[in-house]
């Protein structure tokens, strides 16, 4: 009798453990990818280039982040928009407009609007989600594809997650875990945009892609490209940096 119980126990454990191991591995990997850009705190100088059918423009931004709730961006170039700053604190976005010396708070109705004329929405900033927290992830492919040893994750939003996407697909390099490309699908499971990562170099003390290119699926000839020029992690940033008063600087 005892041996039977033991057998069942072993059988159960055997069936549970691999899955658990797989889940925790996915979790570890996703956290690693999330942390690639943020750490506990960060400071970055980025050039953003936006190309649309009607204009091409670039701007230089500096940004600070602390934890996952606080982010501050400020435009340093071009002169015309210098000083324009965006503060994300919890789920609110404030924009400081130097031209009129006013700070405005974005309402929910504006969340799907373009951020600074780019192909990102204000919502993208607010919902800068932790993949691991908001999605149920599975490894949907592992091996060599197009000559690269890769891992492909398929991420389905958790039921209660406030996410606008229907599905995400994330492809990372198998050895370095550096992201290669991320596909965003809308609620009808149609491809909405692609973010590709390239130009791997040493940034903030480790190898990471320094270029992110966002391409909307409905306008394949347009893009927004972020080039990291400088990235530093784990600085001692005070909370007062992420306040409305420092927004105006």
């Amino acid at each position, binding site marked *: 009798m005892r041996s039977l119980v033991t057998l069942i126990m072993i059988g159960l454990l055997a069936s549970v453990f691999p899955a658990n191991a797989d889940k925790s591995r996915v979790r570890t990997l996703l956290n690693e990818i999330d942390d690639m850009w943020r750490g506990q705190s960060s400071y970055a100088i980025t050039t953003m280039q936006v190309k649309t059918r009607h*204009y*091409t423009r670039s701007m230089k931004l500096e940004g600070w982040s602390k934890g996952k709730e606080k982010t501050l961006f400020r435009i340093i170039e071009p002169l015309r928009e210098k000083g324009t700053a965006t503060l994300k604190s919890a789920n609110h976005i404030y924009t400081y*407009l130097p031209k009129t010396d006013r700070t405005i708070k974005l309402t929910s109705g504006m969340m799907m609007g373009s951020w600074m004329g780019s192909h990102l929405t204000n919502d993208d900033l607010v919902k800068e989600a932790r993949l691991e927290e908001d999605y149920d992830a599975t490894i949907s492919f592992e091996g060599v594809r197009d000559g690269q040893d890769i891992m492909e994750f398929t991420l389905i939003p958790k039921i209660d997650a406030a996410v606008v996407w229907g599905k995400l697909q994330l492809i990372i390099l198998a050895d370095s875990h550096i992201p290669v490309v991320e596909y965003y699908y809308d609620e009808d499971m149609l491809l909405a945009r692609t973010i590709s990562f390239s130009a791997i170099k040493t940034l903030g003390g480790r190898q990471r892609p320094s270029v992110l290119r966002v391409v909307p699926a409905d306008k394949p000839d347009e893009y927004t490209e972020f080039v990291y020029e400088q990235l530093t992690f784990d600085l001692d940033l005070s909370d007062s940096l992420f306040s409305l008063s420092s927004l105006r600087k």
Partner: protein
Amino acid sequence: MNIITLAARNVYRNGHRSVVTAAAMAFACAMMIVFASLIEGFVKGSEQNIVAMNSGDIQIHRPGYRDDPDIYSLMIDSADLCNRIRQAGFATSERIFAFGLLASGQSSSGVQLRGLDLDFEPTVTLLNRQVMLGDWLDKTDHHGVVIGKKLARLLDVSLGDELVFVGQTADGYMANDTFYVRGIMRTVSSAIDNAGVLMSKSMLRELIALPEGAHELVVMRTDSMMNLELASQKIKALIRSDLEILNWRQLMPIISRFIETAHVQTLIMMLFTYIAVASVVLNAMLMSVFERIHEFGIMKAIGVRPWQIVRLVYAETFIMTIVASVIGALLGSGITWYLQNHGIDMSSLAEGISFSGIALDPVWYASLSSESVLTPVIFLFVIAAIAVIYPAIKVAVIHPVDAVHHH
């Protein structure tokens, strides 16, 4: 003796009764004229109102602009188009639009900026007269805007308050400026009510870096008698074929149908009025003949033939109808003329009447036309002729002895 002379003498001799009969007919005729003019005024007024409030007779856009109001969906040669349209005898005005965020204090809302040509907009619409509070736009005021009623409530702003706008310029930069509330619009359309920010075209051009072109051209007939379809055809012939040209009936099919239905409903109402008028006239004619049966009996007794009696009755009726129609037409036209210029103010009954997002003018004006006068006059003659058939035949065939003894 000449029948007409005899009839005229009869009418004159029975002065009191003739006056009552003619007065009844004249009053009925005047009523019909006023009523017909009011109906025509309602139909015309609703059209003019809808057209003049905001839409204009005809609008020109790039195809697809109405579904997806893209800032780049621009008619770049709009100034040239306007010139051509004006040379062809139409009034026209350019409009440009932009979207963005308008904030005041802690509240903000998505808005549509509407850049209007302050010189030409008043030639196509009456938007400038729809300011509820404050003043209409002024070219010399570079920061004043006029906003919708509900938007003002949403942002909790009143006259003179500051507004901050953030949007995007056509060349991809941030569009940002502060305005102040110069005026608040009464309900014109739900779009303006909820999210409309009206400003001068030049202000908006500068704000969104759009030096030329327009998103919308509004065209108005200068000759209100010109058929709308014909006007659309003329405009189509004037400009490039790759633009979408729609008249207000096509732009607002629901409103168009509503007016048509209202027209039919009022026609039915009018039919009832006509029936009521007919019974008044019939009654008057019956009285005027049957009161004189005794008299007709004597005429028969001295040898007047039935056919002559019928002609006599008809001649009398004809004379009275002519007098009644002249008086009625004059009276009816007079009242209509007054109502055409002064209107009936319905605003005390219902404030801010609107339908399907389009506000209607609360003052009801009559519209005097040859048709609205002639139709009732002709109808009066027809009714009078029908009304006397029975009494005329009745007295024509009556036995002289019975008639003489009739009381």
